[in-house]
């Protein structure tokens, strides 16, 4: 029997009740151990420095130093720190800045438990994770411009929702070949843009599963 390696986690969120929910959820997974909790950015930075957790689960909006500033500071002190941004959907306007702060992953606060676990495990393993429901929001630049066309966004969203190429083709009344060609374009564009490389990685990941 192979033993799953332990993953230590630091939780940073200014809402005590959100940390409580997360703690209760993570208790169900014995290989994940919460080694600290922070209610603001400054505390998150100092705990990250002292306890060197494998993954830092970070809320975006916090009083004082917010999650983005805290992520930047943590990455500055511990360059290989792994930050997983844990965000409410209503904060998606901040996602682009999150991408630039050095975080390795994004997950919604309302994500199913399995998605949360996968996100923590992937980020701990040094990979990137983007919550499928955030993918299309992440291809938009800060100025609202989009690297993708409307059709490409539509296809990305369907793939992010878990559809296969064949499903997408059927839904949009186009051939599978056309879908594949769109996906190639999407990947090329996303990978060419440093802001959206994480989405590209996540998309490849979503398609392999």
């Amino acid at each position, binding site marked *: 029997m192979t033993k799953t390696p332990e993953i230590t986690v630091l939780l940073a969120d200014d809402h005590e*009740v959100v940390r*409580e*929910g997360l703690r209760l959820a993570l208790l*169900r997974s014995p290989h994940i151990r919460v080694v600290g909790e922070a209610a603001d950015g400054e505390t998150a930075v100092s705990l990250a420095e002292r306890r060197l957790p494998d993954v830092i689960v970070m809320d975006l909006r916090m009083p004082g130093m917010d999650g983005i500033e805290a992520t930047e500071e943590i990455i500055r002190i511990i360059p290989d720190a792994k930050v997983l941004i844990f965000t*409410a959907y*209503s904060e998606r306007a901040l996602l682009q800045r999150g991408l630039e702060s050095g975080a390795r992953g994004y997950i919604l606060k309302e994500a199913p*438990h399995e998605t949360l676990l996968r996100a923590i495990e992937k980020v701990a393993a040094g990979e990137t994770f983007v919550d499928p429901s955030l993918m299309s929001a992440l291809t938009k630049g800060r100025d609202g411009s989009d690297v993708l066309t409307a059709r490409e966004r539509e296809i990305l969203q369907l793939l992010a929702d878990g559809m296969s190429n064949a499903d997408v083709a059927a839904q949009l009344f186009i051939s599978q070949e056309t879908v594949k060609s769109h996906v190639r374009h999407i990947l090329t564009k996303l990978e060419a843009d440093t802001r959206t490389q994480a989405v590209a990685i996540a998309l490849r990941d979503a398609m392999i599963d």
Partner: protein
Amino acid sequence: MTQDADGRALRERLRAERDERRRLAELIHDGPVQLVAAITQMLDAAQHALAAGDAASGAPIVERALAVARDASADLREIVSGIEPDALRELGLAAAIGELTERHTARRGVAFELDVAAGDELGDGAQSGLYQIVRDALDQAVRRGPPTMVDISITPLATGGVELRIADDGAQERREAVLDTLAGRAAELNGTFSSETAATGTWIAVRLPPVAAQL
């Protein structure tokens, strides 16, 4: 001249409406959105426990999720009734402030000293405007760390105008943006705004000229 004044009034109104939308978005984000996220995590954990036949772990988590759901519901009720309470229309400003402060007392144990009967003599527009200022000032005071004691008074002035004054003994941090929002609401009512923060707490005052008080 008049056009300038009209333009200013329109700008103030648009600004007030934008501030109100932002206030609502922030309240919903900070309260119900977070609570529902926590409930989701808790029920997810409970479901896992129950699926594994571990009712002993699952049951207390469900109980906790239920308590948080009740909190979320109270939060939403508070947000909805704070938008424009029935009491304001039906009974007047004094009763609406009474209801608002009772909620703060019940949920957070804040004590209030009220002297607001004069508010009922004001015009409908002034009552609604002052109510929003009281509500926002209390929301902000609570957010800084609930004060133990808040004084609210509405006093007629010799000029025929009126002064609203709110003093609290809460934590000191007072962001400029918060004061700006309150000052903006006062300007929208054609009033003047002043405030002071000291070691003992913070007070704000809004003075309405006679015409504005009767609006």
